């Protein structure tokens, strides 16, 4: 089969390989782009629940450990559960706004650290 067809495909392929090499193979990442894991209602609901609960769980854990360390039972735990709840709501808010999945996300309309990301 390959005997009948001369290397026309191969020439095209070589051009494409050269093109890809020129571009460095990998292009530049676009942050906060639209394409995200498939969104159907069930998995969205699932994700919201998990984000909420996991942040509260982390807050609880931190508070409990700090209480054990500083011997201030139950106060820090109470404070950190509330902070965890805030973090959970923040996670969900960011997820819903499409900024990403978890901490530290801001939409960068005018990124300042452009050189950093080249």
């Amino acid at each position, binding site marked *: 089969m*390959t005997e009948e067809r001369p290397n026309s495909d191969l020439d095209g392929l070589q051009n494409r390989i050269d093109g890809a090499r020129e571009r*460095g*193979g*990998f*292009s*530049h*990442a*676009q*942050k906060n*782009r639209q*394409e*995200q*894991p*498939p969104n159907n209602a069930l*998995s969205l609901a*699932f*994700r919201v629940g*998990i*984000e909420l*609960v*996991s*942040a509260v*769980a*982390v*807050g609880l854990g*931190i508070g409990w450990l700090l209480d054990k360390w500083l011997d201030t039972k139950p106060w820090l735990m109470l404070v*950190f559960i509330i*902070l*965890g709840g*805030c*973090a*959970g709501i*923040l*996670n969900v808010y960011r997820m819903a706004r499409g900024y*990403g*999945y*978890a*901490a*530290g*996300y*801001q939409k*960068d309309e005018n990124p300042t*650290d452009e050189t*950093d*990301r080249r």
Partner: protein
Amino acid sequence: MAENHSPLAQFEIKTLVPLKIGNLDASFTNSSLFMVATVVVVSAFLILGMRRNALVPGRWQSIAELSYVFIANLVKDTVGSEGRNYFPFIFTVFMFVLFGNLLGMIPYSFTFTSHIVVTFTMAAVIFVGVTLIALAKHKMHFFSFFMPPGVPLLMAPLLIPIEVISYLSRPISLSVRLFANMLAGHTLLKVFAGFIVSLGVFGVAPWLFVVALTGLEIVIAFLQAFVFTILTCLYLNDALHLH
């Protein structure tokens, strides 16, 4: 007999080869067996698929190349050019989770991704690794991650703990998502499969449901492996390019 019909019996860890290292129980269990099986199947799939290494790929080679290109594009799109260094790790994570999920779909097999120990260990490794990469790359600048720009300094005592908790909740949400999906799906399958026998003739209804659910579970196996991978990429992206 009856205890074997519990919908949760399938998740039971059974020790196959007892092994103790010090006080640590490092027995080879059915979970370990299926992890080894997953590694073997993935390796066999990729090595045998690429054995002929033909220019015009055959079926297996096509699938192997497809999975490679799929993850390569994912890394390229979410992380960018620096992500290339981490591609082997991300590809390994994807294949391991995907084949673990899919092997779990074979009747009488064991789904190790339905155990939070397994998923949390993977998520913790990813989380610690990503944090170390960020620290190595940005040094102290990394901690600006927890203090968004343009926030009044007065808010810092409140905001920084919230951001830290939010950051620390990542490995938990990453691991719980995979584990809960697998656990719920397999339990549901078993529960409805139990109805088939007990309903007699009318068991055809749950039977049809189980057939549909099996298809859905296979989709979820792919989807959760994909979600796990894309979240790893997103975290890596954050580590490499702080916001």
